[in-house]
């Protein structure tokens, strides 16, 4: 009995550590193969590249932990980015514009939550619908062309450095990680998220109020996507109508690579960070090695498949 328990605990641990081990291995391989890889400049560059995906993936972790999925994150990113840039272009202040963008992201996420809980629409379908709707709204709002931003303060959010070394988006990523990690591990909210994903009916019977929870979970995902959208808009000096296309898949990949189960109920936020880093370092390393972008996609696909297979074996 104890043996069996130890065995199952060991496999869980191994699976969780899988992503960490994978990242360390990737690190060693890339350091040996490319002289430019293991430099402070490069590592910080990758962290900055990863930050957008990580911000979205943190929110996605909550959604997937609760047994859902959010396909609208990239579209929310583009729409809130466009609105924020549009407000600034119309002469509104930076703080108001950012606040409006973040608030909009929260509301859009909560609309997903309403559709999923009260509307009883499958999360995949509901968020596919909002994805399409928001893409259309973004294109009509921007008329398909970028909205340039010239506010120097705003440009710092995505392009600034702390102590002339650490890019600001990296700081945002770690702050979001700390806050989300606390939400997940240190609050009742987090325990309820996991409970819903494990067994929604059981969670309901034990007094978890499902509908408001889902509103909050999807709202959080929308809020973080909007934040990512603002950081991206700042980095690009402009809001792009087609920004964030396919980002939902990168975020889901980061969550899954990190060892969070797509079936819900089991996972951790640290894994998501590792998963996002894995994807980022893989992209960066393959670029440094001069691998064709076509093969880069092949490699990324294989890595994701391996991660999912490991998940299935559990």
């Amino acid at each position, binding site marked *: 009995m104890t043996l069996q328990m130890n065995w199952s605990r060991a496999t869980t641990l191994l699976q969780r550590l899988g992503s960490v081990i994978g990242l360390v291995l990737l690190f060693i391989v890339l350091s040996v193969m490319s002289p430019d890889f293991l430099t402070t400049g490069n590592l910080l560059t990758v962290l900055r590249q990863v930050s957008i995906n990580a911000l979205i993936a943190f929110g996605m972790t909550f959604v997937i932990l609760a047994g859902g999925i959010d396909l609208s994150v990239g579209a929310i990113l583009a729409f809130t980015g466009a609105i924020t840039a549009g407000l600034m272009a119309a002469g509104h202040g930076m703080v108001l514009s950012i606040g409006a963008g973040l608030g909009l992201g929260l509301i859009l996420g909560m609309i997903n939550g309403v559709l999923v809980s009260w509307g009883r629409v499958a999360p995949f379908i509901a968020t596919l619908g909002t994805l399409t709707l928001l893409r259309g709204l973004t294109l009509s709002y921007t008329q398909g062309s970028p909205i340039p931003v010239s506010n120097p303060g705003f440009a710092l959010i995505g392009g600034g450095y702390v102590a002339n070394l650490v890019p600001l988006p990296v700081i945002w990523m770690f702050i979001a990680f700390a806050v989300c990690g606390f939400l997940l591990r240190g609050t009742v909210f987090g325990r309820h998220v996991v409970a819903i994903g494990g067994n929604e009916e059981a969670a309901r019977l034990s007094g978890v109020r499902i509908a408001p929870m889902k509103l909050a979970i999807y709202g959080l995902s929308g809020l973080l996507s909007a934040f990512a959208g603002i950081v991206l808009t700042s980095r690009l000096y402009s809001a792009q109508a087609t920004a964030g296309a396919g980002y939902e898949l990168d975020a889901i990949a980061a969550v899954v690579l990190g060892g969070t189960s797509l079936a819900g109920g089991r996972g951790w936020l640290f894994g998501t960070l590792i998963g996002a880093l894995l994807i980022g370092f893989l992209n*960066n390393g393959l670029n440094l090695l001069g691998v064709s972008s076509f093969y880069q996609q092949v490699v990324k696909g294989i890595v994701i498949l391996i991660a999912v297979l490991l998940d299935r074996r559990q």
Partner: protein
Amino acid sequence: MRKLTLFAAAAAATLLAACSQQGPGESAPSAAATAGGAAAGGKPVIGLALSTQNNPFFVELKDGAQKAADTAGVQLVVVDAQDDPARQISSVEDLIQKRVSVILLNPTDSSALAGAVQSAQRANIPVITLDRGVDGADVASHIASDNIAGGKMAADFLAKQLNGKGNIIELQGVAGTSAARERGKGFDDEIATTGMKVVAQQPANFDRAQGLSVSENLLQGNSDVQAIFAQNDEMALGAVQALAGKNKKVLVVGFDGTPDGKKAVQDGGMAATVAQQPEEIGRLGIETGKKLIDKQPVEKSIAVPLKLLTKE
């Protein structure tokens, strides 16, 4: 859980140790600058950041660059943004970290890449833009098609075909774009020197469907027309459709030399198209990059000639 935390801490510690060993000084821009012309293998490395490889135009551009790189003894590293500006910024940063000698940038969008160009310049890596420019950043050189000469080429072709006489309809591209402005200027200026006349001109925004409806309207109002000049092939193909079924010989000249446009020229639907030469843009990119590596002066703006394609 404790083991896990331990492991994570150990991993983090290794990471940190790795970072501090290297020290910020070693990777700072100054180091990149001294890396200068020749990287590890002795062969200089040029990075090419493409907007997409989903479009034959840019694949041809890449092939032209690759061939020229092989000839010039330069190693070419290609990164592809899949039309995502954020991805392009990341890949340009990777090229900077790789300390390539020159970056050839074919921007996904002229408004989004200024920051990346500035980062490259801080690392003392010159940037050459190909086909599209970057707003808000100064580059070593910009290489793109000579659209003014292309417009003139179209006008000369029509003058020859029509013996310098006739009425022409002009379909314009998206107002304000450099392509529409320059192609129109080259065409209009040259037409003014002949006996031909542009009797109507209207934007159809580079779009085939709009090319069709605008042509229909303009043909309705102008019965005596011998030629239509469209500032791109898509609009020209729309014009061809508008002419279909009409019992009249109207010469249609397009611009770009897209696969559809070339096919229409072969089929006789279009009289000619002014084709861009993406391979040439790629080749000139490498040659200009090589000059920068060899510390030779380069031109700020290089116009790549266009080529008139007719059925013969």
